[in-house]
């Protein structure tokens, strides 16, 4: 048994943590020595104080943003996977529809968000739609690519054994697509959060209050810079946790066989 500080897991957690602690320490001490005023740029301690002070309202806002993000993410996964399955049915379908998927991807969400927010009365729903549009594309493109990336040898083996279309899908195409799909999940989870926050900004400037973006806007109006930072930290933290969750899910599903998740043999 190796000592704790030598173990892989410990180093993986401790090393970035140490960097964070040092950064925060430099920030706190440096800004104290230079006596930078709070309304220009707050110190970590100011942000923490603000965090405690505005805790309940920040937490409520976080829940709103998280709800929009998760709804959009789930919607994007379901829709994106379905669309990918339709795409791989035939080249003709993919060729006719793929440009529209690209169109969806290249249109900035800030540009269409006002339209959607005007069209859809329910704020929660309109925000979810915006975030879904942002999160959708990586799922479509990755899953389509995965479903197409069938090992040619295995494909001829299936053909030779006269495997039904359904069995080929379940036993060959879907398992083979999983690594690509999980890659899509990682990108998409982050995008869902970005989409949600951007849409909240647009909605917030339109006077419809909700979510962490609105907290940032509101804090900005009253020059409460520490509160802006506190909200910003919550958004970042949410993004990191979402990403970590996706990594964990992918590891759970692929650790037995796929190179991306298999650890070096000991």
């Amino acid at each position, binding site marked *: 048994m190796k000592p704790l500080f030598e173990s892989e897991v410990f180093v993986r957690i401790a090393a970035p943590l140490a960097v964070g602690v040092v950064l925060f320490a430099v920030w706190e001490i440096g800004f104290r020595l230079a006596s930078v005023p709070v309304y220009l740029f707050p110190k970590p301690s100011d942000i923490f104080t603000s965090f405690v002070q505005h805790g309940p309202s920040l937490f409520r806002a976080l829940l709103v943003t998280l709800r929009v993000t998760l709804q959009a993410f789930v919607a994007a996964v379901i829709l994106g996977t379905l669309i990918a399955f339709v795409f791989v049915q035939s080249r003709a379908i993919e060729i006719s529809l793929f440009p529209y998927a690209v169109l969806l991807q290249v249109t900035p969400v800030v540009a269409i968000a006002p339209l959607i927010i005007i069209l859809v009365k329910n704020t929660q729903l309109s925000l979810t739609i915006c975030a879904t549009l942002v999160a959708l594309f990586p799922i479509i493109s990755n899953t389509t690519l995965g479903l197409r990336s069938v090992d040619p040898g*295995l494909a*001829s083996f299936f053909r030779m*054994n006269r495997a*039904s279309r359904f069995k080929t899908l379940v*036993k060959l195409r879907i398992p*083979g697509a999983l690594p690509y799909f999980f890659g899509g999940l990682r990108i998409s989870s982050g995008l869902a959060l970005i989409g949600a926050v951007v849409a909240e900004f647009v909605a917030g400037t339109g006077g419809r209050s909700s979510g962490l973006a609105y907290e940032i806007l509101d804090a900005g109006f009253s020059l409460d810079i520490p509160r802006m930072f506190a909200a910003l930290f919550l958004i970042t933290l949410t993004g990191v946790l979402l990403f970590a969750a996706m990594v964990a899910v992918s590891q759970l599903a692929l650790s*037995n066989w*796929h190179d991306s998740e298999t650890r070096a043999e000991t």
Partner: protein
Amino acid sequence: MTVLLPVEPFDEGARQMTTAVDRPPAVEVLSAEKVFANGARGLAPIDLAIAEGEFLTLIGPSGCGKSTLLKLIANLIEPSDGRLLWWRGDFGQVGQEGRRLAFVFQEPTLMPWSRVEANVRLPLEFANMPRATADPKVADAIARVGLSAFNRHFPRQLSGGMKMRVSIARALVTSPNLLLMDEPFGALDEFTRNRLDDDLVNLSWERKLTTAFVTHSIYEAVFLSTRIVVMAANPGRIFRIMTIDHPQPRDQAFRDSPKFAAYCRELSTWLAEASLQSVGGGEE
């Protein structure tokens, strides 16, 4: 010691049926030729019969169409002209009892996400065989290739030779009558290859398999085969056929015998001649 090698000379004008004697053919290739989509002539019209229980090896320089011929036999591709018969019928009746076909690829082509047992069970699942019936067959096939201790392993945990064994077990699990193998041991080291060849020779003997085998190795061809079809390229055609007159199953003693060495020398000469006749580069 003199070895009498029956030679059937290649003669395009009067192609003769090259059948081993007094056994019904499992496969007949009747003037089958293959012209690829790009116009390249992969195979000139070929006549060949593989007798039941025969171990037939295809060998020849690159581009001689040995893999193409094997794929024709597997019905993986269709001939441009001519036809093939399986057990004196068309491919539709292949798969019935006593007329089963299995193909082993150059690569193990295992599903990386499935354990060894699930990989081997796959062909039975295609046939919708219930688990209770399938499981003993799967265990038996895995035991036959000596991997019983590894049936819960994933392919990536196995060596190249072991993966190839799994691939062979997956072919055996359907109890095939005709086994087609396309350079199955080409990527393995010689020691592993020899051991797998030993197993294969026993296996095909025990199960009375008809085998068509593609290889680049002279030693492997002589050790395994009852007949060796030497092919030449441009266009792909049968150059000569060598009969290896030695009882099956064979063992290391055969490899060490002067007879084996004589066959190898002769085959090597034939291959050199076949290469010379494969004018025009003969690249694949």
